[in-house]
Structures are given as structure tokens and as C-alpha cells.
């Protein structure tokens, strides 16, 4: 397996993405773009092991902050950040600076 040759690092997520094309069971990277003061798509469905990648295309800094405080990810303008989904359930999140920006991840 291609994944096995990678050490535990951020590169593993890239390998996961590559592997996804061949193996639907492998975790995939789901990109959530931040543009014009909104998470897009605002709602995503995912599986345990998938990775959410937020990409901030706004000219402002944002955060992705879980309502249950399970994550709080700073997203400076122009930057991206990733989160590996480790458990099932639905988690809603918002931007701490602009709480009118909301999203949710439904993990199967």
C-alpha cells in the first residue's frame, strides 16, 4: 500500500487523497472553502478517517470552532488547515470572530 510507506505526518493526508482514487474505503480530503463570509459547502457528510480541509479565500482571518469545543482552528486569510475526523456524530461549528458563519460535519 502506498499509505504504508509514509511516516505519520501531514503527508499522510496527501497519500490518503491519492489512495482514494483507487480505494473508496480510504479516508478522503473534503475541502470546505471560506468565501464571502461563508463556509462552502456549509454542511458536509464524511466518514471516520476523512479529513476536512478548510481553505480561507476571504481577506479576513476566520476560525472553525466546534460548538462542543472539540476543535478550534485558526484560519488566517489565504491559509488552509486540516482536521482528521476520529469519531462518528454530527458536529456544528462557527467562526469565533463572525458567529453568523456556521457549518456542520456529519460523520458516519
Amino acid at each position: 500500500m502506498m499509505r504504508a510507506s509514509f511516516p505519520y505526518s501531514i503527508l499522510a493526508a496527501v497519500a490518503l487523497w491519492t489512495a482514494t482514487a483507487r480505494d473508496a474505503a480510504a479516508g478522503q480530503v473534503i475541502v470546505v472553502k471560506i468565501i464571502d463570509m461563508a463556509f462552502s459547502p456549509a454542511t458536509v457528510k464524511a466518514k471516520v478517517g476523512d479529513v476536512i480541509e478548510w481553505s480561507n479565500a476571504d481577506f479576513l482571518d476566520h476560525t472553525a470552532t466546534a460548538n462542543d469545543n472539540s476543535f478550534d482552528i485558526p484560519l488566517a486569510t489565504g491559509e488552509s488547515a486540516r482536521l482528521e475526523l476520529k469519531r462518528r456524530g454530527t458536529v456544528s461549528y462557527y467562526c469565533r470572530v463572525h458567529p453568523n458563519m456556521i457549518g456542520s460535519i456529519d460523520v458516519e
Partner: protein
Amino acid sequence: MRTSSASALIAGFLLSAAAAFAAEKPTDPEIAHIAYTAGAIDIEAAQQALDKSKTESVRTFADDMLRDHKAVNDKALALVKKLNVTPADNDTSKALVAQADAKRQELAKLSGAAFDKAYIDNEVAYHKAVNTALKDTLIPSASNGELKALLETGLKIFQGHQQHAEHLAAHTM
């Protein structure tokens, strides 16, 4: 007594802020000046809060206001340069500055929890007044498409700030 006089001041501010924005249909150069001035006022308010407050949640909020309003005003400056528009001072901008000066002097006399509360309450009231003005007057009056788009983005940003301030006022004060 302190609470009732603060409430009266806020009510007075809201009324005068609404009156300040209720000018005749402003031109694009006037709209640009009003929007920039409104942002600059909140930057000064944030700087005052960072000078005076020791409360982490209030300081974080002030940092957020400083960063966001600077970013929006930088966008506005770049846009007026691109459009070759010279922002035009006007009665609305002048009234906003006069009110902000009075509010800053009032807040300067406070400290500790009283300052925090007055600052956050004013941030709620101020963003509310600015958002109403954007929605009802400035956005509908803007004729340039890019200016209108920036004001619309600004409205979403400042609605977020208002919500953030309301949350702080409700949960930490």
C-alpha cells in the same frame, strides 16, 4: 443610577446615530467616506479598549475589531483608488465623528468591569446602527457595483461583529 444613566446615553446614542445616517441619498464619494469613517471609529474604540481593559474576552474582541476593520478599510482605500474616487466628507461622517468623540471621552472616565460593560454595550449599539445604515441607506444608494459589493460584504462582517458583541454582553458581563 449608573445603569439608568448608561441606558439613557445608549438610547440617546442610538437615536442620534440613526439621525446621523438618515441623511438624503448620499453620493458614492460620500458613501465611501461614511463607511471608512465608521470603520476608523471602531478601530479607535478598539485601541481604547486595549489600553484600558484587562479582561481577556474583551481584549480578544477588541483585537478582532482592530484587525477586521483595518482589513475592510484597506479594501475600501484600494477600491476608491482604483475607481479614482475621492471620498467626500459630509454631515453624516461629521456627526459620526462627533458622537464617537463624546463616547470615547465618556468611556475614558470608566475602568474595570464598568469600562468593559460600557465598551461592549456600545459595540452592540454601534454595529447595530451601522448595519441598519448599510442595509437601508448606504447599500441601496451606492451606484458603483464594486462599491455596493464591498458594502454588502461589510454588512455580513459587521453583522458577525454585532452577534459576537451581543454574545459577550449576554454571557460574560
